[in-house]
């Protein structure tokens, strides 16, 4: 190579080179072990390629070797921030396959647990979202309150994160004494706290500048990508499986479905996705108050537990609203004691698939914001 060729190599094409950044698998803001291959032009991101699978634990293969009840602890570990919801929906899917009814009290206990779990999960989501845009204090605030919910769970079933609480046909323990009082106390304490988060983070000018109008997800794109949960609702689609496809006893409660209204920018921006979660916590509190008031005190939670979980041949696709969106279980049975096929339709998996679509053209800082607003749990996307 001659000198002039070399210099042409160096100076011939004076053009900003595309830089490839490897964000993750170990990075503070990928919420786990997600690897993003980011093609950048300066600070502007031109393309993103997510690489999944760093937390793949063969959930679906394991299910083929386990009996139906043994799968429940594995569902815990999928979305480990909303284990109750996973338990609940899996148990209901198997119950539907078996045509099994559960008692009224069990239904109420399940709804109470799942709604508490929804609050806990949303607290985590908004706290870490604050962390993603650079505010550290909201995170500690939300964790302080999430801790109290975990205390309630611990009081109920002994576990704080992975509960294995909701079983096929019932729940593992009855509610402990005083649970209703403690839960009510928590709700009374918690509701004013939401205003505190709003003061600290939601209506902060810098926060609005960082999240409003950023990463806008139009409703049709959201539906085409099968987005669900707060991500879909923030785009203005009034769709909540608890109301629109009621399962369990959700049709007995009075609550609103929160949709994004573009208060701080465009409908479907990061701020909307964040704020939908904040308001949903209020709705969960509403449901919880009704459920705690209506719940029958008498009854055995183990009454309907089947001796042996052996559903008849057939298959079922059952879906429910986990904190992250539509969590579905496709279960096929061949009449034996182990499921023939379990497929978990995880909401975060679908929500993450639209991430590169809405984040192209934004700056590197916004990538972190958008990823945080989608609120993924890698245990669930990778299974």
């Amino acid at each position: 190579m001659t000198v002039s060729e070399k210099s042409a190599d160096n100076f011939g094409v004076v053009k900003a080179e595309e830089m490839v950044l490897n964000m993750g698998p170990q990075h503070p803001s990928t919420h786990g072990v997600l690897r993003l291959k980011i093609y950048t032009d300066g600070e502007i991101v031109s393309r993103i390629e997510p690489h999944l699978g760093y937390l793949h634990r063969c959930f679906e293969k394991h299910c083929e070797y386990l009996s139906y009840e043994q799968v429940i602890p594995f569902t815990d570990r999928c979305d480990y921030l909303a284990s109750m919801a996973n338990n609940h929906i899996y148990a209901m899917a198997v119950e539907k396959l078996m045509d099994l009814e559960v008692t009224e009290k069990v239904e109420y206990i399940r709804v109470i647990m799942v709604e508490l779990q929804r609050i806990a999960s949303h607290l985590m989501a908004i706290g870490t979202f604050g962390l993603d845009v650079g505010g550290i204090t909201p995170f500690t605030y939300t964790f302080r309150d999430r801790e109290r919910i975990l205390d309630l769970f611990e009081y109920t079933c002994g576990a704080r994160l992975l509960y294995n609480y909701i079983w096929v046909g019932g729940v593992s323990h009855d509610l402990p004494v005083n649970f209703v009082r403690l839960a009510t106390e928590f709700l009374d304490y918690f509701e004013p706290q939401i205003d505190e988060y709003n003061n600290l983070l939601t209506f902060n000018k810098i926060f609005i500048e960082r999240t409003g109008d950023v990463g806008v997800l139009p409703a049709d794109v959201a539906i085409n990508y099968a987005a669900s949960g707060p991500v879909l609702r923030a785009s203005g689609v009034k769709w909540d499986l608890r109301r629109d496809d009621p399962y369990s006893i959700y049709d007995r409660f009075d609550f609103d479905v929160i949709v994004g209204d573009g208060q701080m920018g465009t409908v479907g921006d990061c701020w909307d996705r964040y704020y939908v979660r904040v308001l949903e916590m209020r709705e969960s509190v509403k449901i919880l108050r009704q459920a705690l008031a209506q719940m029958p005190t008498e009854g055995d939670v183990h009454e309907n537990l089947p001796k042996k979980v052996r559903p008849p041949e057939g298959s079922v696709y059952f879906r429910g609203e986990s904190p992250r969106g539509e969590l579905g279980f496709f279960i096929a049975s061949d009449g034996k004691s182990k499921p023939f096929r379990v497929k978990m339709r995880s909401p975060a998996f679908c929500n993450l698939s639209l991430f590169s679509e809405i984040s192209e053209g934004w700056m590197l800082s916004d990538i972190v914001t958008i990823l945080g607003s989608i609120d993924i749990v890698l245990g669930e996307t990778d299974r």
Partner: protein
Amino acid sequence: MSSWTDSLVGFISGIAWLPDMSAGTIMVIVAVLLGLPVFTFMAVNALVAVYFERKVSAFMQDRLGPMEVGIFGFKGGKKFWGGIGQTLADAIKLLVKEDTIPKDADRPLFILGPFIIFGAAFTAFIGLPIGYGLVISDFNIGVFFISAVSSVGVIGVILAGWASNNKWSLYGAMRSAAQIISYELPLGMSLLLVVMVVGSLQFSEIVLWQEQHRWFIIHSPFTVIAFFIFMISGVAEVNRTPFDLPEAESELVAGFMTEYSGFRWALFFLSEYANMVIISLMTAIVFLGGWLSPVAGLLDMAGVPAGWYYLSGPLWGIFWIFIKVATLIFIMMWFRWTFPRMRPDQLMYTAWKVFIPFALVNIFLVGIWELIFA
């Protein structure tokens, strides 16, 4: 105006039993004698400020902060003083930690980077007074000197980021360069307005003017704006939240210091806290009356005879200036623990489209104000 350098030079050349020395030799001795306390001050400042920051953040976040490590058996219990030895332990840890240099890093520049940053912060202390004559050297271009010296630090940041051969570091370095250059302008312009009124670049002159007239923050409505511009730009200059983009941990891992460890990392840390003190000292001197007592001024206004209070002597001066500095540093910490971080383009927008036009108009308006009222 006397300074520590002048007095020490006078003192050393006055000692009879010493052999005759040239002025240069004496200057070297004096430089060492004065440099050591500055270095000690920076180190101690970082220790105290880090502890303070942890406790402040813990207080704001409804938790306790460091509680376990004590000094000489004193742990402080569950009070504010709990875990008093934590930062000392951290400092020792940093000093004995393995110092890694990445294989593909540009070794000389990688080593040089933190020293440039530290050197810039260190040198700035030469010109900063904490009282009448309580200064290492009272330059007649003091304000200008500090601006000049602090503009050098950015080179260290860029070098550190570039030499690490890490893309996150490079991003941090580029952001930092753009940020610091941008915010130097509003910072300088806000100072300019004070310089214009006083007619001197000397810190002691500026304080003297404030003693004879009034503090600059209440000089005119425009200086209030200038104070805020200066304060916020100062926060941006020292790379603290909401302007901590060069080291944004949620985006760039740790920005330009990602690859650093041990002592070199500690140098970054020392400089960051030293820079906080420098900016706060400058703000206090230029806008908040330096070592002047706020109480004395208030009592004066209330008509209390001067003999009734003893709150404005030289020692009180040191007390007052440190109270002001501590308050300003606390405000910076307050920012950090409550605000989210800005985005690079918003940062540039704030500097170029908000602060600089305001600062320019400010200079003009203060000029008119002076023409009318002075």
